[in-house]
């Protein structure tokens, strides 16, 4: 424990002893990358409504408001310390500053590389990081001791999709992937999910953006989707620039899923059950925009942290994180079931929405997919198959 922290704690004990100032300060940190390229949508990619960079912090702000009644009642004075920096060094400095300001949980809206860099740095700090927007399974298998995840992992997302494909009996997939490094990662996750539920992959084909996109795109999609038979096209196109032109342009009349068409998401604003409408409309009123999956993951991260503070008495980082990873936590994410974190990889268990641009078609786990412990564990790498590979 840091000396300053010991002093602060000693002060709390003192105040508690005198019966003064029952309030305990809780600082939640938030870090994002300045001008995060993941959120740049210069080409007017409008299928999903993306938050502008750095604005997922709205989710955390809303969670503080949602929880204010219970944090007030339990004597917690909660503040949000949001910072951003352009690179890993800057983010490390910001993380240290947030920890020095009292943050014991820091929510990260960062790509996988930056999350991994900060998770290494966090090993020397009295802090728990919560990865809210990097779905990469490599962050889970890295087994960082101070890292939880509220973003669904790639495997969870693709498992949700393949459950639906299997239920529909669409069992032959043509896989297309692009040049972004994330595209191959997503296509690999889909291949693993497909193998689990015995969805056959008829072919896996790379696509590239041509120098003259107008002609190239038209010709290429026909060619890319020709010469083989399949029930559906799976597209891994992280930036979405290519994918949005594929539906209705395939050689065979087949549905398109993945980065366009039917997309697996942590959240979709059009979901209307389980109190989801209230969450989405609160967010809409507060920000003037629709709640995205990233916004939800940041919201639920802050809500999970504050729920742990309000439902436990030992507020050390280790004790709070242990509570979050236990069955004792019954977190409400407005998805109809209670959520908590997997004890083997720190991943938040959650239903995954399968959505088009304006409707949730299904929510996974789909009915009939069973699991010996928790049906939510049909999504993602399960305990038995999980191996740490730092």
């Amino acid at each position, binding site marked *: 424990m840091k000396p300053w922290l010991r002093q602060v704690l000693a002060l709390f004990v003192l105040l508690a002893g005198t019966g003064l100032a029952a309030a305990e300060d809780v600082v939640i940190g938030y870090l994002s990358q300045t001008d995060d390229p993941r959120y740049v949508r210069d080409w007017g990619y409008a299928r999903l409504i993306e938050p502008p960079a750095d604005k997922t912090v709205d989710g955390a702000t809303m969670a503080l*408001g*949602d*929880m*204010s*009644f*219970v944090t007030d*009642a*339990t004597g917690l004075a909660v503040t949000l310390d949001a910072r951003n920096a352009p690179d890993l060094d800057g983010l490390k400095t910001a993380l240290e500053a947030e920890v020095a300001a009292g943050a014991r949980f820091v929510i990260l809206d960062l790509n996988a590389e930056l999350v991994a860099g900060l998770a290494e740095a966090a090993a020397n700090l009295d802090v728990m990081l919560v990865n809210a927007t990097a779905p990469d399974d490599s962050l889970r298998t890295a087994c960082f001791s101070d890292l939880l995840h509220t973003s669904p992992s790639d495997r969870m997302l693709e498992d949700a999709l393949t459950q639906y494909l299997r239920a529909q009996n669409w069992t032959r997939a043509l896989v297309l992937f692009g040049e972004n490094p994330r595209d191959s990662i997503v296509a690999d996750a889909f291949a693993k999910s497909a193998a689990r539920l015995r969805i056959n992959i008829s072919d896996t084909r790379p696509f590239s953006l041509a120098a003259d996109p107008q002609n190239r795109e038209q010709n290429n999609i026909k060619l890319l989707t020709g010469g083989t038979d399949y029930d559906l096209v799976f597209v891994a196109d992280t930036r979405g620039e290519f994918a949005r032109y594929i539906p209705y342009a395939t050689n065979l009349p087949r549905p398109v899923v993945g980065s366009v068409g039917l997309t697996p998401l942590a959240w979709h604003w059009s979901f209307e059950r389980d*109190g989801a409408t*209230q969450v989405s*409309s*609160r967010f809409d009123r507060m920000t003037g925009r629709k709640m995205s999956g990233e916004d939800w993951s940041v919201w639920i991260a802050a809500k999970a942290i504050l*729920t742990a503070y*309000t*439902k436990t008495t030992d507020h050390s980082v280790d004790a709070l994180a242990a509570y979050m990873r236990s069955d004792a936590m*019954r*977190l*409400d994410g407005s998805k*109809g*079931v*209670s959520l908590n974190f997997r004890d083997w990889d720190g991943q938040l268990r959650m239903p995954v929405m399968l959505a088009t641009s304006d409707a949730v078609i299904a929510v996974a786990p789909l009915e009939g997919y069973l699991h010996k412990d*928790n*049906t939510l564990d049909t999504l993602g790498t399960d305990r038995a198959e999980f191996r740490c590979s730092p």
Partner: protein
Amino acid sequence: MSSSRNRTSIATLIAATLLAAMPAASALAADTGLIFISNERSNDIYVLSPDYQLVTKIETDRRPRDMHFNEAHTLLYVACGDDDVIDIINVATLEVVDAIPTGPSPEVFAFSPDESQIYVSNEEDSTLEIIDVADKIVTTRIPTGAEPEGVIHSVDGKTVFVTSEVADMVHVVDLASQSVVKNIIVGTRPRRFIVTPDGNELWVSDELSSEVHVIDLNTMEIKQVLTFLPPGFRPEDVTPVGMAITRDGTKTLISLGRANHLAIIDTASRNVLAYVLVGSRAWSVDLSHDEKTAIVANGLSDDITIVDTGSMKPVKSVPVGRTPHTVVIDD
């Protein structure tokens, strides 16, 4: 919908009629045996005869949810969440005759014992409102945790309880001072209430932690936490919401949501007497006056299930409108 001007004039007429008949108010109750089901998504109330035939559909304002009769059962009040009103239905003519404006998204409400006031939870702006029924004006707004839902008053009428689904707490509102005097942290996503007829216990259903918290009303402390598990289900499938209790307080009925069962409980011992299979996502439950029949609204299968409380078996399921929310019986 009829225009509001129209409604007001009819309402005035009816109010006058009622006023004239007031001393004999209870004699007015026709005990029609009609069953009313509010349907959130089809914006109507299905009226079924005692033998479960459709009598009529009453068009209401949008998203009708919680419903209560006045004491005389001449009027039925319906909270309509998307139009921010409580519609008033004339039980004799089965028409909407008036409406009381509320704050945003009224969900659940309760009358004061003398029916002069309505306590209503407004889901969207996180308040408990107190409405003067005669003047149809909001007299008090009390802030609550986010997404307030269940509302009930104590037997003596001095205290109102309201749940906050997001804050996981029960607010204890003192009506004399019109303020929250205590917050009781309960399970995850607390929804609805019952007060035992002896006035000693408040039961709270916790949808997402699969529990019912029993609060001692003399100490305002949690006395017991009950859990339910129909055979073949997992704890996380059990999402209790609706509750009803017999007038003598001996039996309590709790709908278990996604577990598609109604639990019938011996109130004193807390023993589960039976798990009755009903429809998909069992929500609200109401008892007939003779308490021989319980009716459960099934939110995801768009039907109601009639349960014989003697044999503790389902009798039949009847299709209704889209997303049934609340069932009340006029008997």
